[in-house]
């Protein structure tokens, strides 16, 4: 009798392990998924600021946004993440990566060795980016200074240190869809939607998350507790921004000044350092899109 039960349990365990293995397998792009697009370095630089790469990947304690030695520590409910070096250094950075490697990292959250990245790297938003924009960004990063640095790994307690399990997280949270413009909306709002939901990755801070850290897409941009501790990240839907005319939103993204002449602080200070580099038209597009998101409250 017992032998039977144990046999059945073992079989179930095997099936379970097999299912786990399949579900958590990394999903990657093939070379044929990428076009032959020649990198446009000017757009690559633009995407670098639209994507806010420097805010995480810049070497801390210095002002040069193009010095990408990594090392910043990001606190979270799951432990402490340490941001990697993405300079084109062949030993400490991403020097030697192919364009396909870079695209898989940005769009699929998979490293060149096939392991999963933690979603502290916001590929849940970057997955919306056009492959051409990603190719341009890679081209631009390749022109930057290689930086030597020794960044320790993340500090995550069990069970969050099991990288393979991120495949399960992705199964639940990564839909693999790229950005689809809505033909019913204006070009300006579509451009704003692309910038906010793709490279801008605004939703990563401004949207609430479930206990496993998945974004609650039904409450998109309605605000969330600050992942790094105290305070809240505000609601930036039309409901949350009801006191802000569109032009004030665009102005704040340019200068950091709010409609009551306060100065945006906290993590938004770093965001404004990036959005200050966008064109006025793109800042207007972002403002127009945010005003078009109805919000709940």
């Amino acid at each position: 009798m017992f032998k039977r039960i144990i046999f059945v349990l073992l079989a179930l365990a095997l099936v379970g392990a097999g299912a786990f293995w399949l579900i958590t397998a990394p999903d990657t792009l093939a070379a044929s998924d990428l076009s032959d697009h020649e990198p446009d370095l000017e757009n690559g630089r633009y995407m670098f600021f639209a994507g806010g790469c420097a805010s995480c990947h810049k070497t801390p304690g210095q002002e040069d946004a193009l010095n990408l030695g990594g090392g910043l520590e990001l606190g979270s409910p799951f432990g402490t993440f340490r941001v990697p070096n993405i300079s084109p250094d062949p030993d400490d950075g991403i020097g030697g990566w192919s364009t396909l490697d870079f695209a898989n990292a940005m769009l699929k959250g998979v490293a060149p060795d096939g392991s999963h990245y933690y979603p502290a790297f916001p590929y849940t938003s970057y997955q919306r980016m056009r492959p051409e924009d990603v190719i341009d960004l890679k081209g631009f990063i390749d022109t930057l200074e290689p930086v030597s640095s020794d960044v320790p790994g993340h500090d995550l307690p069990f069970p969050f240190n099991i990288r393979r399990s991120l495949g399960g997280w992705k199964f639940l949270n990564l839909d693999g869809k790229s950005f689809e413009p809505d033909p019913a909306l204006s070009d300006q709002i579509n451009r704003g939607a692309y910038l906010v939901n793709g490279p801008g990755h605004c939703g990563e801070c401004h949207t609430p998350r479930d206990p496993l850290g998945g974004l609650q897409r039904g409450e998109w941009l309605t605000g969330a507790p600050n992942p790094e501790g105290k305070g809240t990240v505000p609601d930036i839907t039309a409901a949350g921004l009801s006191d802000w005319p569109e032009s004030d939103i665009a102005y704040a993204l340019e200068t950091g000044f709010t409609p009551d002449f306060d100065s945006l602080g906290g993590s938004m200070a770093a965001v404004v350092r990036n959005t200050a580099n966008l064109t006025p038209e793109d800042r207007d597009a972002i403002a127009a899109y945010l005003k078009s998101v109805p919000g709940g409250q």
Partner: protein
Amino acid sequence: MKRLLFAGTAIVVMTAAAASWAAMDPTATRKAVMKNNGAAMGALVKMAKGEAPFEANAANLAVRVLYNGSIGYTGLFPAGTETGGDTEASPKIWEDMAGFEAKSEALSAATAAVIATPITDLDGVKAALGAIGKTCQGCHETYRIKKDG
């Protein structure tokens, strides 16, 4: 007219600030100083955006208000005022008072530089806003926790 209104508001707020200082309430005083800073920035921002006519005297007065508010500002953060009084001060201020003082000095330096070479045109307003705004952001980024939105 607007200049009078601004100057009048500044005087009222500064009086309120002085009064609350007299009442030994550093938290209320420092909040009043910051509110006043907002009004001063408002005068400059409106000119920069073209929503108000450029006036050299009003612009330089606004910068002077910001300078005055920054002197001795960090003294309004004694031990015991970390919480209460609806403060938005981050605990980091007391963990790193030297860093906080450096940020406050940056505002003093930026405004002192404009006082040394006063604003004479709209370009001067925009340049001042850029330099001063950077110091606002530089401090708020680390040492303030915004309460609502």
